[in-house]
């Protein structure tokens, strides 16, 4: 039987936070897309998946390529995919030429996800791939803190190097995004369009270009989180689906279109899952229901406070 003591709780907490940062990065892309296009992309998981594979194959083909470069390149790949898709399939939305835009967007992005997943499966097959660890930790021992190449051990709490890396990358990218959005012309443009298209157009911002950019950046973030995680998880074409579902939960929890919301939501979901899985008495059920914990929170949020923690009143 599991005896619940502080170190165990701390460990669950640490695990939750670590994975939470990674969730948050993905959700951030989704929420960015929503804030500008008012669209939930149901292909988000597939961009994440493709980002991972892109990074993997880049590192395979160009040995000695720096991981961070690979991540950036992977990001630009998914950016391209996203931008092109937006241009072809979501443009009528931005131009407000579609009846019931919400539903159209759901279905068409859904179709994209379906298409991309099976395309990857058909092209590269089902065998799991995984990139080598990006950065080895320097081995050292400092009282309770121990580090090997793979793991950083804080007392009884082991933290995986690959995840630490991914989490750090996630935090950095999120900070960059926040800077972009709050301190550059691009960010101003995006925010303007997300608040009021017409007004933005009047002050000389091209809403169409902004939509393309926003969608591209959203998919880019998904791709980059995939690229950041490909050393942490065995990568297969179906890898995206669960991750995507997580980010839906997160953006609803944090409030659709709210970037701080996405970050906080990610952390909350990460922790809730860890605690739920860690603390539910029956070990079998505890783990089998893992994805359900997020779902339940999600359902409750939708019912009790549809605009989430930070969402603005629609």
């Amino acid at each position: 039987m599991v005896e619940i003591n502080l170190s165990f709780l701390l460990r669950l907490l640490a695990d939750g936070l670590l994975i939470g940062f990674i969730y948050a990065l993905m959700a951030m892309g989704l929420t960015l897309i929503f804030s500008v296009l008012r669209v939930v992309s149901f292909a988000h998981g597939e961009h994440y998946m493709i980002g991972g594979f892109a990074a993997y194959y880049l590192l395979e083909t160009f040995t000695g390529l720096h991981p961070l470069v690979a991540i950036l390149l992977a990001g630009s790949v998914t950016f391209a995919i996203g931008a092109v898709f937006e241009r072809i399939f979501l443009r009528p939305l931005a131009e407000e030429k579609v009846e019931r835009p919400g539903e159209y967007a759901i279905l068409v992005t859904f179709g994209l996800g379906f298409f991309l997943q099976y395309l990857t499966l058909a092209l590269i097959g089902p065998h799991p791939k995984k990139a080598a660890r990006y950065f080895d930790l320097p081995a050292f021992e400092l009282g309770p803190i121990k580090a090997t190449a793979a793991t950083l051990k804080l007392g009884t709490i082991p933290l995986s190097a690959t995840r630490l890396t991914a989490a750090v990358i996630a935090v950095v990218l999120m900070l960059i995004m926040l800077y972009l959005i709050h301190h550059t012309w691009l960010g101003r443009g995006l925010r303007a369009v997300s608040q009021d298209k017409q007004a933005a157009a009047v002050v000389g911002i091209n809403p169409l270009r902004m939509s393309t950019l926003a969608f591209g950046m959203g998919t880019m973030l998904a791709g980059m989180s995939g690229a950041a995680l490909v050393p942490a998880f065995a990568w297969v074409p179906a890898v995206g689906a669960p991750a995507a579902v997580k980010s839906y939960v997160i953006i609803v929890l944090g409030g659709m279109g709210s970037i701080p919301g996405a970050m906080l939501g990610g952390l909350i979901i990460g922790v809730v899952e860890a605690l739920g899985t860690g603390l539910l008495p029956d070990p079998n059920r505890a783990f089998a229901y893992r994805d359900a914990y997020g779902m339940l929170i999600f359902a409750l949020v939708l019912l009790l406070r549809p605009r989430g923690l930070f969402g603005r009143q629609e």
Partner: protein
Amino acid sequence: MHRKQLLALVAMAVFLMLLAACAQQAGTPQVVRETVVVTQEIEKVVTQVVEVTKEVERVVEVTPVAGRCAPTDPDEVDKILIGATGPLSAPGSVVGGLVMQWSLNIAVKHINEAGGVLGKPVDLIFYDTEGLPERGTAVAERLITQDCVVGIVGEYHSAVGLTMMEVAHKYRVPVVFAETWNDKITGSQYDEIFRIAPTSSMVAEADANYIQDLGAEFVVIVAENSDYGVPASEATKERLAQRGIDSEIFLAEIGTQDWSPIIARIQALDRTPDVVLTLVTGEASYNFEQQAAEAGLMPTEETVCIANQVAINSEEFWQNVPDGNYCVFRKVGLVPALANDVTRKFEAEYRQQFNRFPESYALEAYDSLLIMADAINRAGSLDPDAIIDALEETDMIGAQGRYYFPYGRKNPVPPDEPEWMWHQWPDPAVLFLQYFEKGQSADEAAVVWPEKYQTHGTFLIPYGTTP
């Protein structure tokens, strides 16, 4: 939240509780009994309608006459059609299906190079079963009644095999199952059903024996909640108990990525497991093993890592589980030492084509077709009974060794043997191999069980040592 919504939620909860309660004390509630009365009337009508349609069918003869369309006389055909199935798309295990398809194609190549069957080329029709039982029914139906195959081989998922077997039984078409472990499959004792894969019981037995030989006292079994993981974990737990070894099962959703919470749980148990047994397939197993290694759960001095059998793909394994050195893994099939010409021929071809180490189910798939072809040859006819007789008398060397089916129609399963021994190859070799050098290939790995095949004279190369 609206009052309506609250009410709805409450209503729902109450209803579910009622349902649960009724389910518990399997008594029939009033409402059901009433409906029964009504529906019984309707049912009478329905059955009559069915009778009528049957009558109509008899008149117009729409019912397929015995459905099975394969001719019995080999001279009527210019090639021998054999059906095969396996999962090629989700929710099935695509890896498994793909590998089996590859191996079966190699088998076809080899058979035809050797002059085919009854002097005619063999042609294989492979269908995707998606790991869905209902697809199993449909696909078997299609193979038998449309494509007119004389026999069926392969399949990976037990849940699918269980439905296919009924169809094959209905149309009397022989099947040699390659990688379906569920006891019930040969346990059905159908004339048509043969199996060369080990049954879950056999594998569980082997696992338990090895773990006993390791002298373990407490075992943690990590399993996926699938048609493979659940029965396997329970069978193993039971057998461990018989040997006085405690064990705890942790079930996880199939395809799980992040295992950290469950690993935390295992490490928070009041005793450290001597062995962690991984009954998780595909990429999920790699995720678990690597994350367990990073968390210092296994492999360690205290805890033996028994990885899933997919670890035999050394390249893939080291890529996905870089810190998995000293992990033991099960191999169903031959020790390199016992490899025969057939094995070498197949392995050579397989590696050269796909540059992977052939998994157990690769060899099984390959052999399943060889066995079917051999039986048809000996039967000298395509008549199902003749083929089934021939199969029962099988005695041939395949990639996994000598095949034979001790119990069947002529020689029924004795009471002291489990009924799944019917048409079951009794000695698929279940071995345990261990990596002891990072990046080493599966054939360099040490054989640690059973004792007679040990390459390093030990049940376990201790963590961190080199033999």
